[in-house]
């Protein structure tokens, strides 16, 4: 199987969307599932959420944010290059039903996969409100796509350079309107924040947890999270969980356990000249 990159789209400075040839995965993929990529032989296994699939073309798309060694390296791949391995689809599909009114909140790179859910929710007959959260106006992407698959779109940025400043406006939104379900995909701190906002309103809130993963099939347990006081595995029990019962603080700590090693790896990559310098 050759996992050729058929198209590469630069979403923002360090945010990239790839469409790869993977017909068997495309045939089974559903919103909410993820894949694990090994860019080249000897590389690391990185989990990335599926943000689109096309059964006819036999392709799967994913978007990633360059944060460490492997995602930076992935950023240097071009159209026509092949990935060493793509495993998937992994994890449980999202629960897509007609709930009524659904609030979909996406943050930074996870906006891309969120829109797949917005679309699925809309196709299932829901009224969909999509919120795109970004750091500043330079990091906003897929606004048109969001409009096309939602009834209502709001934009928010951390610095207020575009749309609302921060996510506090969600409280007003929830006071004004009834929502039957909320779906949040984004950085862990953001998912925690949004879950805290929706809790008093009693809106069931689904979050996509992104613990560190290796195998992604339930064998290593590095992805364990605490939800409702129980130890669950992000890869096989999730990746979606009840945001009101998730121990986000533990997750944040667990995501950082290998930080010194990740920094070293990233630094070595940059000093060895693999990196950004070549691309920009």
């Amino acid at each position: 199987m050759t996992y050729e990159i058929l198209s590469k789209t630069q979403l923002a400075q360090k945010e990239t969307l790839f469409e790869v040839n993977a017909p068997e995965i495309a045939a089974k993929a559903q919103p909410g599932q993820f894949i694990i990529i090994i860019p080249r032989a000897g590389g690391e296994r990185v989990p990335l959420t599926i943000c689109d699939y096309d059964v006819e073309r036999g392709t799967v798309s994913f978007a990633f944010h360059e944060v460490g060694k492997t995602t930076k390296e992935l950023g240097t791949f071009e159209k026509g290059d092949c990935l060493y391995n793509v495993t998937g689809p992994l994890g449980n599909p999202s629960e897509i039903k007609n709930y009524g009114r659904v609030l979909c909140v996406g943050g930074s790179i996870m906006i891309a996969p969120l829109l797949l859910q917005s679309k699925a929710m809309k196709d299932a007959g829901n009224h969909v409100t999509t919120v795109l959260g970004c750091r500043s106006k330079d990091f906003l992407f897929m606004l048109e796509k969001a409009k096309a698959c939602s009834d209502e779109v709001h934009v928010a940025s951390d610095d207020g350079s575009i749309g609302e400043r921060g996510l506090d406006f969600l409280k007003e939104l929830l006071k004004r309107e009834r929502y039957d379900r909320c779906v949040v995909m984004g950085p862990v701190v953001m998912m925690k924040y949004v879950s805290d906002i929706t809790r008093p309103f009693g809106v069931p809130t689904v979050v996509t947890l992104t613990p560190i993963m290796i195998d992604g099939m339930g064998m290593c347990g590095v992805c364990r999270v605490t939800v409702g006081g129980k130890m669950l595995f992000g890869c096989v029990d999730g990746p979606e969980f009840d945001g009101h019962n998730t121990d986000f603080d533990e997750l944040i700590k667990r995501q950082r356990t290998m930080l010194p090693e990740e920094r070293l790896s990233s630094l070595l990559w940059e000093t060895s000249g693999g990196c950004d310098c070549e691309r920009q």
Partner: protein
Amino acid sequence: MNGSEPDTKKAASTKRQQAVEMPKQGPEERVRNFREVALGYTEEMAREEASRCLQCKNPQCRKGCPVDVPIPNFIKCITEGNYAEGISVIKTKNALPAVCGRVCPQEEQCQKMCILGKKGNPISIGRLERYLADWEREHGVQVPEKASPTGKKVAVIGAGPAGLTVAADLVKLGHEVTLFEALHVAGGVLIYGIPEFRLPKDIVQKEVEYVQRLGVDLRLGNLIGRIHTIPELLESGYDAVFIGSGAGLPQWTGCPGENLGGIYSANEFLIRVNLMKAYDFPQKDTPIRVGKHVVVIGGGNVAMDCARISMRLGATVCLNYRRSRKELPARAEEIENAEEEGLICNFLNAPLEFYGDDKGWVKAMRCTEMELCEPDASGRQSCRIVPNTDFTMDADTVIVAIGQTPNPIIQRTTTGLQTDPRKGTIITDDEGRTNLKGVFAGGDVATGAATVISAMGAGRRAAQAIHTYLTNQEPKEGSS
């Protein structure tokens, strides 16, 4: 394999009784590298050891081997210097001799039954098997002839010892075999679990290549249950399915603090080090962090492997086991090796709680003393907490190696498949038939964590049952 000093004392008078020792890397040296510890026999050693065999008419040793290797026959070939024939004799029954010769618990199996074992000096059957397999690898591996195509297709799930055996056997019988493996490398526990210094990965790789050369179509990165379900495989043209998905789901102590950083399941630790080659970080991309004081909880082979890896990564390692030395389930040879390398064993204690620092990294653990009591229903020595004996010990890395249960994805995604709800195992008869038509299973997924050779034995029996199933099916199906 040469240039090593055999640490044997071969007095001429005892020559015929005493087993020929196998040279090993010395403990001070090997604890600083990941190279294989046991170095293998030289030709002279192999012939000397083989010459001790009595060539029994009714060889007891064979009864101890779960796959019925014709032991006296291959040993005879060694004494005659006829190595090519020797290896083909083994391969009639065992597709992975280089692996079994290294990791079979021979002292519990073939060697336990050897007639010379009664006097405490059984023939070193495993070492001889390894010798022939290694000889063959150096001299070029022959691929046997296949039966003519039957037109039947079989899907084998999991490329561990069970799946590899089923795939090899069925392809030789003329069936078309697709082997689906979820990871990006084939071999199962042989690749991701057992460390390099006990079983070099290029040997496993060669065994996998052999199975591929037989004509098996290996598909890596295919997690069955997600990419295809078992009913889908049967509908899409496979006439039978074999499930050999192993037992890789880690078990936990359930003590508070277990989700702290620095607490690994044995599998996470092993997967990082063996599969992802984290011992070579940052040359390889997957990291591992091991502190100064590693505590391994458990006492089986898996615990021993984790301990020996940790020592190689530079740590001081304690093994905390809740029963006493006598009950340690690990192989005697491995315990001895580990202690030579500096392992400290703490018996009769169990963890109660883990303490972390402000960054969420483990720094200490509270334990209690245990005592042995009456054996439980299964005859296993039980143990219980001794009240008010709590103590605290430093630990900046903890590895929980207290067992694995079957990987659950297939069980969860195959409706109607009969499983044991308590153990998570797939229920089969002796030949590996599940309750679903055309669906077979074997190895750790059916028995719970066991051994390489028992998984292969199960694979062998299942392959026969599948073959019978496929050949009987023919008349009914008519055209194909």
